[in-house]
């Protein structure tokens, strides 16, 4: 039976293309999650749930509908392939593996050194670029010799070898391999264009325009992306990034010589590449707050709510920078099946994905089928309801009544305790607790 599952990635990730093209050949069904609300690069892939399945937090990552998880783009592409793509004899399979590794070890490093400065995501170093150009010339020469007498890399049909190498060469052909440079490598270009024009490649890559003029280092773009990067490093994001930082610092800082560390730099670069121009932070107008929501969320997720998380909350809660809200679903009489009501709540959470850094909530469903109600307690940045700040957030909130809570009132204390622990009398509701959902 054909493989089916979910592929997590950021948009336009050439590494993910490998699996997607292979799936076009095999008929594997891949659901791509690359954009909010389902997947937010740098956020979803750092979440504990994600790291549990994919400890490195790298994308692309694949999760089969049967629960099978695998990371590393080549492994994913291999998994979703057919026997023909993998190579059906031991020799063919070895040859396929040879070219897949060749792409990663001989093409990608010099390609990145050369291409990324032209995209403004890596500093330009003339010497490094010139060395990279020569390396690219060398690997294209090797490929050209091989493809002189061959239509595809292995055997007489498309294999994973072709898929991997085309994807590895994609940026080169788009950015810097102008007609003069690629001229001597006609066999490579013939093969490359043929692959691009196979319906299975086209379905994933669309129309690819080959480079007409060799792109040069873009100082302006570079400055912009650096500024973005710096901004990303500011707190409260710092905690998120922390897991990536330490191994880098162990390396002695290199002098002027800026030969990028292929793999690592590449991923950093790709992250920047993937980061869409950052939308303005809707909370930018607020003064800094000492209350660190992430800190509380960690306590809430990992430790006892009543004895640790709640005391922590009240100790650190900043009533100037944050507010507490009680919400109630306006149309309880329309709620029928409980699972549908739950979807209503989780759907709202998903649509509020980008609010997660600035809000926390516990929303609870009470009662049973055809006799239920929904209410919850929200912790939110600022003193106003945040939903109006972004059009994405306005879908659901009007279906609820909102009441601001006074953090000093006894009512507020007991609501927070009951909703955060999902325990207590919930006297204001009049229906028994059914289930709760946490927005974090």
């Amino acid at each position, binding site marked *: 039976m054909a493989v089916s599952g979910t592929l997590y990635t950021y948009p336009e990730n050439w590494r993910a293309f490998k699996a997607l093209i292979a799936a076009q050949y095999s008929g594997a069904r891949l659901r791509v999650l690359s954009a909010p609300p389902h997947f937010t690069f740098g956020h979803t892939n750092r979440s504990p749930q994600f790291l549990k399945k994919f400890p490195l937090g790298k994308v692309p990552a694949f999760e089969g509908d049967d629960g099978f998880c695998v990371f590393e783009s080549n492994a994913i592409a291999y998994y979703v392939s057919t026997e023909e793509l993998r190579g059906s004899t031991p020799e063919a399979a070895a040859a396929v593996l040879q070219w897949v590794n060749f792409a990663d070890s001989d093409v990608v490093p010099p390609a990145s050194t050369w291409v990324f400065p032209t995209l403004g995501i890596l500093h330009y170093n003339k010497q490094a670029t010139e060395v990279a150009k020569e390396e690219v010339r060398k690997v294209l020469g090797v490929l050209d010799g091989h493809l002189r*007498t061959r239509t595809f890399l292995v055997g007489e049909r498309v294999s994973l070898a072709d898929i991997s190498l085309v994807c590895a060469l994609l940026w080169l052909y788009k950015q810097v391999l102008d007609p003069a440079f690629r001229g001597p490598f006609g066999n490579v270009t013939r093969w490359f264009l043929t692959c691009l024009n196979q319906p299975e490649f086209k379905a994933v890559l669309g129309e690819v325009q080959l480079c007409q003029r060799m792109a040069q280092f873009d100082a302006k773009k570079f400055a912009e992306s650096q500024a973005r990067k710096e901004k990303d490093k500011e707190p409260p994001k710092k905690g998120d990034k922390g897991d990536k930082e330490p191994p880098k610092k162990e390396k002695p800082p290199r002098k002027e010589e800026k030969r990028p560390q292929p793999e690592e730099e590449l991923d950093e670069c790709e992250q920047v590449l993937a980061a869409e121009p950052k939308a303005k932070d809707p909370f930018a107008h607020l003064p800094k707050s000492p209350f660190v929501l992430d800190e509380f969320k960690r306590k809430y997720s990992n430790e006892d709510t009543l004895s640790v998380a709640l005391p922590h909350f009240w100790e650190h809660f900043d009533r100037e920078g944050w507010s507490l809200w009680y919400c109630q679903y306006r149309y309880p009489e329309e709620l029928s099946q409980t699972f549908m009501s739950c979807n209503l709540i989780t759907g709202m959470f998903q649509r509020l994905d980008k609010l997660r850094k600035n809000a926390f909530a516990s929303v609870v469903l009470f009662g049973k089928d055809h006799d239920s109600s929904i209410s919850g307690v929200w912790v939110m940045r600022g003193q106003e309801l945040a939903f109006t700040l972004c059009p994405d957030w306005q879908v659901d909130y009007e279906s609820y009544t909102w009441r601001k809570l006074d953090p000093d009132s006894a009512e507020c204390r007991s609501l927070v305790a009951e909703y955060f622990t999902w325990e207590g009398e919930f006297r204001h509701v009049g229906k028994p607790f059914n289930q709760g959902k946490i927005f974090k």
Partner: protein
Amino acid sequence: MAAAVRGAEELELLERLLGLPGGNKYGVQGERKVPVLQTNNGPGLRGLMTIAAHLVRQARKDQLLGSTAEEKAVVQQWLEYRVTRVNGGSSKEDTRTILKDLNMHLEDKVYLAGNIFTLADILMYYGLHHIMVDLTVQEKEKYLNVSRWFNHIQHYPGVRQHLSDVVFVKNRLYTNAH
């Protein structure tokens, strides 16, 4: 010299490749032995190109005739070339010209028309088979692009059938061939 695949034999190869049930009776007409097919409920079809295109449509594999207008035209072009030049020519000189033409055309292409396998590749393969069988290693090296294309097409599933497998050396033997 190997015998050329022509007329009914070629069309029967095509039928099998297309997965058609077969059973068509082909005749030949005139001095140049033009193939003829009498259909059940229509007029008789005459000529290789016409009958081949008919079989392709019958098999509902229209993509073999090209997808875009340009591709369709180029498929037609090579079918015409096949009928007029490959079938027409028989001298050594003719053969050399054909191989030279094709070698140039295939330098930056994998298939004759566009980027996909079409009827042009199939019929050119059948038309050239008897020529390629007789080429020396040096000639195969000289017409390198034709060799690469021919080898690819003969390995295309279902194309070669009972025809002999022409062997090509993939590593350069004579570095001074060009």
